[in-house]
């Protein structure tokens, strides 16, 4: 599903922050991406989400060489990827329900066709009471859950999550991890970038450890 070959990344003329990355993300796999702060976890997620292009090497996503993709093709591939960012990126003028339903809306689906699905998921992540609330009045944890719900609602083939449990208490963190596991069991490949050792210890999964720009894989 994802293949990196000798991938390097630098910002401008600065040093290479990711070096010689060689790995594959198989379909239906589950992995944690970890490493110290500044190791390049977010940059690697951005490479996977096509927000950044590698300075060198080959990135192959869903069988396509990303260097050869046009803008509309990138948009089409992104429809198959869900992403949860640390800063949530919710739209403040839309309710929680509308934010979570946004991927369906962009696909051009009728509201009636996805309403039940969105409501069920919002209840699952504990936002059943907050469907009509606007993001500015949500707590950090609620925003995070809304962002996760938006990333998983369209059942993407690949889910990228950057510190998805950073703003929630341990109990809710465990439940969110269960959501990711459920999603993985239904066929989505999951990559969770996290510092949280406790979270990683809760589920036996492949670990990708970034250290000094290089990736070490522990199966």
């Amino acid at each position, binding site marked *: 599903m994802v293949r990196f070959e000798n991938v390097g990344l630098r910002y401008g003329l600065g040093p290479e922050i990711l070096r010689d990355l060689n790995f594959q993300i198989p379909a239906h796999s589950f992995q944690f991406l970890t490493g110290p702060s500044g190791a390049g976890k977010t940059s690697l997620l951005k490479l996977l989400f096509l927000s950044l292009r590698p300075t060198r090497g080959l990135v192959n996503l869903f069988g396509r060489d990303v260097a050869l993709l046009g*803008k509309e093709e990138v948009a089409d591939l992104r429809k*198959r990827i869900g992403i949860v960012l640390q800063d949530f990126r919710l739209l403040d003028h839309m309710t929680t*329900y509308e934010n979570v339903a946004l991927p369906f809306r962009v696909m051009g689906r009728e509201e009636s066709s996805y*309403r039940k699905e969105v409501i069920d998921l919002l209840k*699952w992540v504990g936002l059943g009471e907050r469907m009509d609330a606007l993001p500015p009045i949500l707590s950090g944890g609620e925003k995070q859950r809304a962002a996760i719900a938006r990333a998983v609602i369209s059942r993407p083939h690949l889910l990228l999550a950057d510190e998805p449990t950073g703003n929630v208490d341990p109990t809710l963190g465990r439940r969110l991890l269960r959501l990711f596991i459920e999603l993985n069991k239904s066929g989505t490949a999951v990559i969770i970038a996290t510092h949280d050792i406790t979270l990683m210890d809760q589920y036996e999964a492949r670990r990708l450890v970034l250290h000094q720009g290089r990736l070490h894989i522990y199966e």
Partner: protein
Amino acid sequence: MVDLGNERPQVPARARNLSPIVPRASIAGRALVAVVAIMTFLASITTGTVLLVSASAAEWQSEIASEITAQVRPAPGRDLDRDAAAAAEAMRMQAGIVEVRSFTKQEAAGLLEPWLGSGFSLDELPVPRVIVARVQPGTMLDMPALRSRVTQAAPTASVDDHRAWIERMRSTTGATVLAGIGILGLVIVATIISVSFATRGAMAANRPIVEVLHFVGAGDRYIANRFLRHFLRLGLQGGIIGGGIAMLGFGFSESIAGWFSGTPVGDQFAALLGTFALRPSGYLALAVQAVLIAAITAWASRRTLFATLDEID
């Protein structure tokens, strides 16, 4: 699945009214409406004034061009009344002239009264006699033949077809219309520039929306369509406000001119700008112009929008 939230249904069965993807009311959006409204107002005032001036100039020209004036000057040893009657008769004989009116001595005194005051004796002044002839519209009058006929009948008479005056009028109004078109061009260029800047500001304010839409897999075309619709709506709002106020202004100026008619100020304005009445075609031109400015807004926004999307990528 485990429900972590409250079990009470929060969403009614009916379809929800979804919020627009690009929020309608924003400070940057209001600024854009204000900019477009002001620019449309200025463009409409310019166009309306140009239309008024050119219409009233055309009216003047056609009125003056359909008239010919002959002056019979007094000369020693000649009977002014007889010369005037002969000149009038000679003019009446000319083909193309439909009406000849000879001003009497009293009428001539009336014409001079604003300059000389009342109570003067016309006998003491060598006041020429004026004859006004109306030409059939669309007729090319043979002026040399008319002149020779009139001077044969009355040697001290001269005929004036106001050609020099009309030429000067034509060049003055032509210059006014050209200046108006120039100003209109500048207003349109200023509109494009200010709308581009206002759009850039509005896009900067909406950048997080564009980024989120990218995250959920929206392509540039999808995003551009949403924003173009938004900016076209803002442009139309601004166009309707600015063009509407200008049209109301022209409508009221007609009424205001009506209140002042008969006063010296009103008469001066009426002489210069005619009746102040913009024709229906003029109002139509202003409406088309407002729509055009809305389209320019959408076009300028589109350019700015794609530049911004490229930047965000």
